[in-house]
Each structure stands twice: as structure tokens, then as C-alpha cells.
């Protein structure tokens, strides 16, 4: 019983660490080919790093047929796009100030983050 309890508590600690405390590394997207793929319930890459101060475009490729993945929202930039299935959708970003810009689906089950460094 002691082992079971310890295992349970360890599991809770792992859940907290894995989902809340761990900070994933941002992927640096290539200048010419910035594509984020939506597949199997996630954005890949979900954390991206972009340069500050220049307007740029990123592309989204939705391979996930679930209607949840259809809407892309970047609330800080007031961007709301409908992503077609199996087609690239270009999203125009304004010149960004350094900071973090979360993006997600309508229900926030698919989540990602754009990080802009100085």
C-alpha cells in the first residue's frame, strides 16, 4: 500500500512538472519556410521563435480534420483565421515587439506560443 501511495504521489508530481512547470524550447523557424503543422491535436512546432521588428508571414498546414483545429486565433495580434484542411494558409504578421504571443484554437485545446526576442 505504501508503494502504491508513493507511486500515486510521484505521478501527481510528474503531472505538475510535465504539464505546468516544464518550459519547452522554442523552435527557430527557417526564414524562407515558416510552416506550422496542425496534426493529431497539436501544433508542430508549438513554440516558435521569431525576430522582432519586421513584418513577416508564417504558414499553417492543417492536417487534422477535427473542427477544433479549424480556427487559429492570435488574440494579442487580433488575428483570427480559418484554416483549410490539407492546404497551406499564409498568415501575415505585423512587425512584432519583443514578447510572447500565444496562439490557439477556439477552445484553447490546441495551444502554441510565438516568442519574439529583442
Amino acid at each position, binding site marked *: *500500500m505504501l508503494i*502504491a*501511495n508513493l507511486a*500515486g*504521489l510521484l*505521478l*501527481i508530481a510528474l*503531472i*505538475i512538472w*510535465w*504539464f*505546468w512547470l*516544464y518550459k*519547452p524550447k522554442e523552435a527557430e523557424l527557417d526564414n524562407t519556410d515558416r510552416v506550422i503543422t496542425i*496534426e*493529431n*491535436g*497539436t*501544433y*508542430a512546432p*508549438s513554440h516558435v521563435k521569431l525576430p522582432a521588428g519586421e*513584418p513577416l*508571414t508564417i504558414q499553417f498546414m492543417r492536417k487534422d*480534420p*477535427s*473542427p477544433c483545429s*479549424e*480556427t487559429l*486565433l492570435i*488574440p494579442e495580434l*487580433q488575428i*483570427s483565421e*480559418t484554416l*483549410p*484542411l*490539407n492546404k*497551406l494558409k*499564409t498568415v*501575415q504578421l505585423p512587425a512584432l515587439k519583443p514578447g510572447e504571443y500565444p496562439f490557439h484554437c*477556439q*477552445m*484553447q*485545446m*490546441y*495551444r502554441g506560443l510565438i516568442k519574439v526576442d529583442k
Partner: protein
Amino acid sequence: MPAGTEICASGDKMTPEQTHQELLVDGVGCASCVKKIETALKALPGVEAAEMNFAQRTVSVSGITPTADLIKALENAGYGAKLAEAASDDAAMAEKEKADEAYYKRLIREMFVALSLGVPLMLYSLVTGEMSVNTAGEQVGWLIVGLMTLAVMVLAGKHFYVGAWHSFKNHSANMDTLIALGTGTAWLYSMVVVFFPQAVPDMARHVYFEATAMIIGLINLGLALELKARGRTSEAIKRLIGLQAKTARVIRGGDELDIPIERVLLNDRVRVRPGEKIPVDGEVTEGHTSIDESMLTGEPMPVEKTLGDKVSAGTLNKSGSIVFKATRVGKDTALAQIIGMVKRAQNSKPPIGRLADVISAYFVPTVMIIAVLSALVWLNWGPDPVVAFALVSATTVLIIACPCALGLATPMSVMVGVGKAAEAGVLIRNGEALQTASKITAMILDKTGTITVGAPKVTDVVTAGEWNHDAVLRLAAILEAGSEHPLAQAIVESAKESGLYSAVNRGLATHFQAISGQGVSAVIEGKAVLFGNEKLMREQAVEAGDFVATAQALAADAKTPMYFAVEGKLAAIIAVADPIKNDSIAAIKRLQNNGIRVVMLTGDNRATAKAVADKVGIKEFFAEVLPEQKSQKVQALQMEGEIVGMTGDGINDAPALAIANVGFAIGTGTDVAIESADITLMRGSLHGLADAIAVSKATLRNIKQNLFGAFIYNVAGVPFAAGVLYPLTGMLLSPVIAGAAMAFSSLTVVTNANRLRLFKAQDH
């Protein structure tokens, strides 16, 4: 003025201001075309950058060059081109429907696969009550069932497991995580029982394969039904997109060609025959007709159009054949902008939804922790068989929790509410405007152009002595011809309409003199004429006699009377008034009946303001308000604690619209007002205000119901699943029931949001 069709030209986004355009290029055969296309575009003045995407056949162009020039350059280089965005609306919608249909079929198929195993297993368990593994024979039998369940998991539930795994790798968790964990745990435990029955206590040698199969089946069914219900939430936008014509008949070089609307260029001449849709925005250059604009403005009466009048894409040409010049094409048309605005608004969130967002961000891991805690509690303090109870409670907690219902609550209602408003001719900019509009306590109305038509007309000509109506109006028009003042223009217009004045008469007035604050004097055809207020008459010693009373009566009737004298004798009183819109009185009454304090603002004099306010039943008004004071009046009401809506149409109103809690721009208004407004009324009628408030209230109520339902469902469901009622009732929720509840909770939210579709703006 055609009612409400230019309204939506929210900010005249004519091509020279554009910074980025995307064109779809035809005829790109090989990679070498890329260079050719980019060079052709870069050679144009104003193009800063041109980048071709060979795979997609699109080219992105940055700069200030008009679209038409870009397309022409590409055509000269031997390629066909059209705006990528404009072309895609209709096609994208069709594609989306196709993709959704395919996904729906897949979910239904998967549901059948899962239920065809789950239902017989569940019936067996219910009938025999025997799902335990005690003998070697039972071990073999259940192993086969276990493998069949594994097949169901792969064939019908693969998307949950793959999704959960990918989310996990990304340090995120979603609904897939919960379903995969719940069903996976049940299956794994059952397989342990099958292989090593001795490892678990006698009473706990129970298998849960039916739960795994049933949950997968039910959740797939729930997803399929939700997909269908979601489709209905976007009906309004589909209808708007459906308004777009597919082709246009343009006249180029004497030939008439039917071309796709994406290829129509600015300044193209377009012919539209009776019964056809107007393909792009433009200005009539030949013919006259009546046009049904109800689809855009909600205004049921067809509007007469003749030379110089504006026509809008998506409206229906009823009677005549016209030719018009295209003034806005592609994504610049009013219709395209309405579609864009509605789409953006549908995806924006009112502040009320933010709490749900915060919760959904932490929801799934929290539920996982609760599941583990629940299992631990059962293990430590539960009755025998503790292992089985711990497993059932943890699985049920994982399965019953539904982040989707919470996440869907707000967006689904906003989607339907904003769409519904658009159908009633009310464009809501975003979720925040929607929420604030539902709370408005005071509404400020600008008089001119909002309560009134905004175009003064001559209403009365009361003549004296031997003078007659026509002679007076003719002289007055000649006198006022040079003036830009709206009242002067009303007199000139009226004389023109009666055929009493034409441009030939211009310049007949000599010795013209403006007398500040009083009026004007001049000599016409050798006679000295005076035109102005009572003071002018007094100072020039013109006897007005009984006419002073006439003038007062006219002023009390919301008209502006002016005295006209010839050779020192009073000839007539001419009254000009800005007529009150037909339905202003009823619309204001609707607002007041809703408990909203209605206040009128005007730059006009007190007497006219009072007369108009009295007529329309407004008790509070501010007259002689300078344009810059309008926003101060808004602030004053806000200081009193009111949530203020401001309705206006003019450039002067822009600061006041922006400072108000909700700014309403009235349809026939200018672009500036619309840019600074939160809500745009596409037709001129003030009924739109009450409609907007009613639809906002209905939407907010719907969101609250959804949020409340979703909160209560989770807050009550999770502890129930964990077994808090067990000590009282001796019952533990079955994971299968939890699966059904979960599948139908999000469906309930979407269905409740769809109820908003039944909302009807009040008849008026």
C-alpha cells in the same frame, strides 16, 4: 441616397493603401516561371517585393500598386491571375463542407465499429453479471475479447491515442488525453486480470473491455453529432458568402464577356440584367432600375437606382438593365468586408468567456491529478475490492470531465449571435462590443442623419400679397445658388425639382452680401431682395405683421423658417426642415420601453431641437452642441454611472463614438464613423439599435447558460465520478455512463447555442 449600402466600406481600403496582396496565378508550368513572374511584378512602380510560391501557384506582393495593375502585368507576361483571398471564400466553404462530411462519415463508421463490440459486451455483462476471470477457460475467452477490444481501439479510437501521445510530447493535454488515459487504463487493467488473475484479489478479477469499447463508440457519436450542429452555427456566414455572384458580364473594348468575378478590375464597365445579382460594387453609368438590398441592409423595400447611384455586390437587380462602373472589387467590396468583419467577430471572445479560457488551460492536468487522488483514496480507505474501485473511480473521473463543453460555451454562442445580428443588418465588431451592448443603460442619439433623414427639404412656402410659390422659390434659389449651406442647398434643390431653377440662372444675383447672423441680401433682376431671420427684417424695416406668428408656429413644428422680402416688402416665409425618419419614433419608444435612457444631441438651435425631441418622445436633449463637445457629453453621462451607447453618422461624431462604451454607426454614414464604431447598423433605421441590444442580450444569456451548464456539469460530475456519493448510496458511476454524459455535454452546449438561431428581431 440609397439606404445603407456603402456603410460597410469600413475604411475605404482602396488598393493604393494596401501593403500586402496575394494573387493566384494560372499557367505556371515550370519553376522558371517563378523568376519571370517576380521580375514582371517587381518592374512595376510601387511594388516593394514579390515572392512566388511555386507549389501553391500564389504570389505575395508587398507595396502600394493597385491590384488591377498587378493582374495586368501578369496577363501581359502570359499568365492569368486573380486575388487569392477573394477567390477562395466560396470554394473554401465548399471544401470545408466536403472535408467535414468526410470526417463525419469516418466518425460514424468508427462509432459502429466500437459499438458493435461494446453493446453486445455490455448486454452480456448486464444479463449475466459475470465479467470476471477465474478459470483457464475464462482466461482464453476474455483474452480473445481483449484482443478484439484492442482492434476497436486501433480501428475506431486511434485518433484519441495518437492525439494524446502528440499532446503529451508537447507538454500539453487535451480531451484526447483524458479519453486515451481512461479507456487505456480500463483496457490495461483488464488485460492484467486476464493474464495474471492471481495477482489481483478474487473480488477484483473483473474485466472492463465493454467500457473501453462503449466509451470510444459514444464519444465518436458525440463528436459526429457535434460536427453537424457546429455546421449549423455558421449558417449566417454561409448565407452571406452565398450572396456573391460567380460571374460578371463586363464590357471591354466593345465586347461583352462573362468572366469570373475575381477577374473584374477597377473601372470595368459591368452590365447587369433584370433578375441578376450585382457582382461587384460600382456606380451606375447607364440605365435605371430598382434593386433589392434587403440581404445586406434588412430593408425590405427595393431601392431606385439611376445615373451616379451606387450599387453593392450581392444585391439583386429587380426591374431594369443597367451598366455600372466597378469602383470596388475583390475583397474591397462592401459584401466582402461584411463577410470579413462577421468572420472576425465570430471568432472573437467577449470578456465573459475569459474565465473559461483560464480554466481550460489548467483543466486536463487538474482532472488527471483528481483521478490519481481519487484512486489513492479508494485504495487506502475504500471497501474491497479496493483495486477495482480505485480503477473504476479513476477511469470514470477521466472520462466524465469535459473540457470541451467549457471551451465551446462562449465561442459557439458568439458565432450564432453575431451571425444572427448580421442577418438583421447589424454588424458587431467583436465579442467585447457584443457583451457591452447587452448592458447599455443610456443611448445618445445624434439628431441630424440619425433621428432625421439628414437631408433638409423645403417644407412650406407661405406667400404674402400677390406673390406665388413658384416666383418666390425661383428668386430664393437664384439668391442661394452660390451658398454651400445645407439650408441654402435645400432651397436650390427644391427649385430644381420643380423646374424653377437651372444652372443658366446662376449669376443673376448681383450685389450679393452676407449679413452675419441674419441672412443675405442681393439684387436680382433689378429688385432688392432680402432673405434671413426675423432680426434681418426688423433691422431692414420690413413689416412682418402676422407672419411672425406663422414663423413661430413653423419653428414649433421642428422647421426652420426664413423670411423672404422683395423691395422692402415681405414676400414669403420659406420653411426648411430635416424630416424625421419614418420609424424613428417607434424605434426610440422601443429603446425607452427597454429601460434605456435616450438622450438627443444636436448642433441645431434650441427651438428646433426641442420640437424634434418632443415629436420623437425624447425628454432629454442638448442643443447647440459644438462637434468637439459631443464626446464631453458622452463622458458626462458615463460619470453619472451610465453605460453609454452613442449613435452617429458624421465625421464629427467619430471621437464621441470612440469614447462611448459602445459606438453605433448608422448605415448611411461616412467611413470614418464606421471605422470608429463598435456596431454598424447597415440600414438607416434606428430599429437597428434595439435589435442590436436585443441580440446582444440574447447571446449573453445563451453564453451564461452554456457556461453555467458546463461548470456545473464538471463541478458536479467529477466528484460524483470519484465516488463521493458512495458512502451514502453505495453506488459508483459506471465509466460507460460517464462516457455518454461526456459525449453529450458538449453536444448540449452546441445545441443550446443553436437555439439562438431562432432569435428574431422584433417586427417593426
